[in-house]
């Protein structure tokens, strides 16, 4: 169900757009797809191997939102961008939903997420289109799904703290990501008349829109988990691993062919005490009218997802 991570953020974006009632929404699906969508969402099957099919599907669209599954062929974004250009689409929201690739290229390089994201941005610009990247930090509920992420093994009631477990990072719920996209696409494209101080979509042109739900450490997440599960610290086995050692261990796993090493290294790097995943000073939450969310409610929802096995492979 891993690929539903991508599906999940896309689903939340669609829900938020539908709830806003301001957009005509077209879901691009591959031919033969059995995916179902809410009322008011038009389904447009395409043949991804056909440029013409993609162009025809995108004609009349102003914005293309990409929330690609990691299982999607790796040139799919490029194909879609090329088709979008020909179809007259003006804006692309690339499939990022991550950290600060703009101002922290070091982190992007060390997590391996930055270079491909920056390459896609460049392709969009060279195509003469505009992008807005959603930089949301780590997905909160998704990070409950495996012990390589926030360090929790819920079945065993074990927690590994990276370093002291007190480094805070920016996280976002999928719902907040959905609301952010809907809010962005509800802005006027350009400022209107004398209203020079109004927020516009163009202010985000070829930039990141930074959003967040919780700026939080592992220890703070753990405290929320304890409140949400009614357990005590004594019920858990807590281990510590120096964050640098964990990062190197993940890289070694990856080099040895163990793909989980990527996740180990990624999350370890983001919990370095160097602001690697600290987006707080740049958040556009207020500008976009995003709500403040309740931490324990989000934790309970994430735990329910774990219980339902939504993250199991």
């Amino acid at each position, binding site marked *: 169900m891993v690929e*539903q991570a991508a599906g999940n953020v896309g689903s939340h974006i669609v829900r938020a757009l539908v709830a806003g009632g301001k*957009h005509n929404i077209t879901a691009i*699906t591959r031919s033969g797809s059995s995916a179902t969508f809410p*009322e008011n969402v038009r389904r447009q099957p395409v043949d991804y191997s056909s440029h013409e099919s993609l162009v025809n599907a995108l004609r009349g669209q102003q914005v293309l939102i990409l*929330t690609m599954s990691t299982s999607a062929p790796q040139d799919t974004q490029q194909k879609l961008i090329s088709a979008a250009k020909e179809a007259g689409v003006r804006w692309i929201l690339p499939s990022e939903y991550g950290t600060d690739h703009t101002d922290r290229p070091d982190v992007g390089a060390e997590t391996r997420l930055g270079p491909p994201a920056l390459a896609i941005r460049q392709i969009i610009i060279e195509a003469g289109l505009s992008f807005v990247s959603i930089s949301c930090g780590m*997905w909160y509920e998704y990070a409950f799904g495996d012990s390589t992420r926030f360090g929790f093994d819920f079945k065993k009631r074990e927690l590994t703290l990276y370093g002291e477990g007190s480094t805070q990072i920016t996280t976002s719920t999928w719902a907040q990501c959905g609301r952010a996209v809907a809010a962005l696409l509800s802005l006027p494209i350009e400022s209107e008349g004398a209203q020079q101080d109004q927020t516009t979509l163009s202010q985000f042109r070829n930039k990141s829109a930074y959003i967040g739900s919780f700026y939080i450490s592992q220890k703070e997440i753990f405290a929320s988990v304890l409140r949400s599960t009614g357990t005590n610290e004594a019920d858990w086995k807590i281990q510590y691993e120096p964050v640098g050692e964990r990062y190197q261990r993940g890289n070694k796993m990856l080099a040895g062919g163990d*793909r989980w090493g990527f996740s180990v290294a990624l999350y370890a790097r983001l919990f370095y005490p160097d602001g690697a995943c600290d987006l707080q000073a740049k958040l556009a939450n207020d500008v976009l009218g995003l709500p403040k969310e309740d931490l324990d409610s989000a934790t309970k929802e994430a735990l329910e997802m774990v219980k339902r096995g939504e993250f199991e492979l």
Partner: protein
Amino acid sequence: MASSSSHPALPFTNHCSTSSIVDLFEPSPYQSDETTMSTPSEPPRQPASDLHGDDSNTIKNVAIVGVGTA
């Protein structure tokens, strides 16, 4: 960038497709499931008008990829 059409899923990439990472691996068994969306709990409002609408300074028509699978 990769050109293969059958790259594996990374079972843990939070976010974007990362060909440089995916290239390291053989195809995995983790193939994508279709996502089924239920009707949102909040009832949808009246949809926007067709095509670009009568206000060229707003976004009306939005396409999204990845809600199901690509």
